[in-house]
């Protein structure tokens, strides 16, 4: 294997590793077969595993996720692709009403081991209906696990955990990260869901980020470091389970908290992180908490306009500076 791998290729590699070790893993989705997916995240799977395990579907989001659920209820481990995360709305019934409730409402009789993969977030100039960061939609639903890796190694390790999970997982692949590169992880690499990573150590402020906000937070930390402010950066990696222990432990060192979210302030995951801190870690804080988030608008098309409404390095740096001076 090459010594670097893209985030995009890591998706296909992560799925392939699981398909090799478990015959019950099957893929379905639009254009995922010979075409390799519109984001080229399933390249090679059709060739290696054939049409009996990699199934092209019609444009039928309800049927894709509903059929994945039926297959998961009956002994398979389907990996369904919903092309853009905005389209989760077309099959929202399955994510909000069917998949996450069936175990509970049947008194634990059934399990739904499936993964719904989807390309999330802005940054590629696709306009309002193909650019949203929708991980917070899923966060409102009890019964869904939510993964959102930031690096190629995590893509592979978290796909392994998601596909092996007996619980349903919504797996957000960030569009703006697809071309990023990293070291390919060794065989058997597994990143358990619910384990955040401290990706930069620092004693002055904790930045909590997810997916494409992780490299952004790291860039902000570099800028701040030049000003003598050392930021600790946490990559949450999954929203459910949520690793609040790592956040609280970091706060006990830094005493200042900023969340960096692509989703809008209203209902964003940072609100949950912050409320846990307010409940259980208030005494650790020496300053108010800050949330850098997207604005509550549909994503505009022009890059310059998009910059106005999503978190940027500058916005993070400004928020931290104010806190440091508090």
């Amino acid at each position, binding site marked *: 294997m090459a010594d670097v791998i893209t985030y995009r290729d890591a998706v296909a590699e992560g799925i392939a590793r699981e398909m090799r070790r478990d015959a019950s893993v099957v893929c379905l989705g639009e254009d995922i077969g010979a075409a390799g997916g519109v984001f080229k995240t399933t390249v090679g799977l059709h060739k290696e595993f054939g049409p009996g395990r990699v199934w092209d579907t019609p444009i*039928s989001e309800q049927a894709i996720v509903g059929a994945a659920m*039926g297959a998961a*209820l009956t002994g*398979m481990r389907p990996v369904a692709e919903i092309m853009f995360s905005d389209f989760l709305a077309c099959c929202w019934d399955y994510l909000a009403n069917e998949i996450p409730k069936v175990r509970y409402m*049947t*008194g634990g009789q059934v399990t739904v081991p499936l993964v719904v993969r989807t390309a999330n977030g802005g940054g590629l100039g696709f306009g309002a209906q193909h650019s949203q960061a929708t991980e917070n939609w899923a966060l409102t639903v009890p019964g869904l696990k939510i993964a959102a890796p930031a690096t190629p190694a995590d893509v592979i390790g978290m796909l392994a955990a998601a596909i092996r999970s007996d619980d349903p997982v919504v797996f957000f692949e960030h569009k703006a990260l697809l071309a990023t590169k990293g070291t390919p992880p060794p065989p058997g690499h597994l990143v358990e869901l619910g384990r955040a990573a401290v990706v930069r150590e620092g004693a002055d402020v904790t930045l909590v980020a997810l997916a494409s906000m992780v490299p952004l937070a790291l860039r902000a930390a570099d800028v701040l470091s030049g000003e003598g402010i050392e930021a600790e950066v946490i990559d949450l990696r999954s929203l*459910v389970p949520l690793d609040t222990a790592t956040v609280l432990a970091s706060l006990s060192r830094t005493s200042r908290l900023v969340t960096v979210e692509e989703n809008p302030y209203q209902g964003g995951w940072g609100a949950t992180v912050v409320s846990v801190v307010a409940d259980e870690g208030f005494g650790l804080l020496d300053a108010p908490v800050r949330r850098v988030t997207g604005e509550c608008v549909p994503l505009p098309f022009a890059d310059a306009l998009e910059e106005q409404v999503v978190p940027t390095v500058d916005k993070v740096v400004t928020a931290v500076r104010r806190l440091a001076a508090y």
Partner: protein
Amino acid sequence: MEPAGLLAAYERMAVIRRTEKAAHDLFLHGLVKGTTHLAAGQEAIAVGASAALRPDDYVFATYRGHHHALARGATPEECLAELMSRATGLCRAKGGSMHLTKAATGMLGSYAIVGSHLPMAVGAAWSARLRGTEQLAVAFFGDGATNIGAFHESLNLAAVWKLPVLFVCENNLYMEYTPIADVTAVPRPAADRAPAYGIPGEVVDGNDVVAVAEAVGRLAARARAGDGPAVLEAETYRHFGHSRADPATYRPAEEVERWLKHDPLDLARGRLAELGIGAEAVAEADERARAVVERAIEAAKAAPPPDLREALTDVWADGGAAWRT
């Protein structure tokens, strides 16, 4: 159907009818909460189809699903206990009337979002294909569900993947309160649409348990042989209103009368007589059904309430509900 098979089917229908009556009465006595959607009058579809299915076939149903659960292995006692919020309920009192499920016998659930379970049945049939079993998946649904997008997505996907799935529409002429004919572009809401997906769409007298069993048997054999899905539209009528809140005053008296005369239990009795099964054997079946349901009512009433800790179990595969570390 063999005489013995028909008598057993009759008895199963009698059990369902009595269980439905019990659900109705227990609701009036305040022992069943929420709402119920009774299927009295539609028993022949569940029982006829079951008679033609293998024990390991999969069934998916709607909120009007008592009859399917009972036809596919759930006991009146566990169903009534579920309706009465008892610890011994089929879903440990976490499902209720609209979600009767018995996974162990392939009754993979009752879903209360209209039409939502059709793609699940497609997925179960796909899974059967992938695993190389000859299992079939059956989705039972109402006429109203045929105007939901998931119905159309399901028929198409099942057809292009040639999956062993049967779509069985229980056309009881009404959605909640609106006649299906008033809001549907074709006279046969399910069967007329099937040809658009390149699959057979048949109509059957849904109150005739023998006719249902024959039609399902034929379409099931075809699907198992690899010839793909089919739609069966079973004409029927619900004896009660849509749900507990509905006295069904919108139905013309002579329509109700006509359908009550075409009762599935009466029809089955007629067929039994034709096969030479005496009135005595039928009376014995009725008596067994009565006794089973009576015992079920008493047992459910005597069962304890659920352990309150149950509220925080079964969200995740580890049995718990924790969302954070």
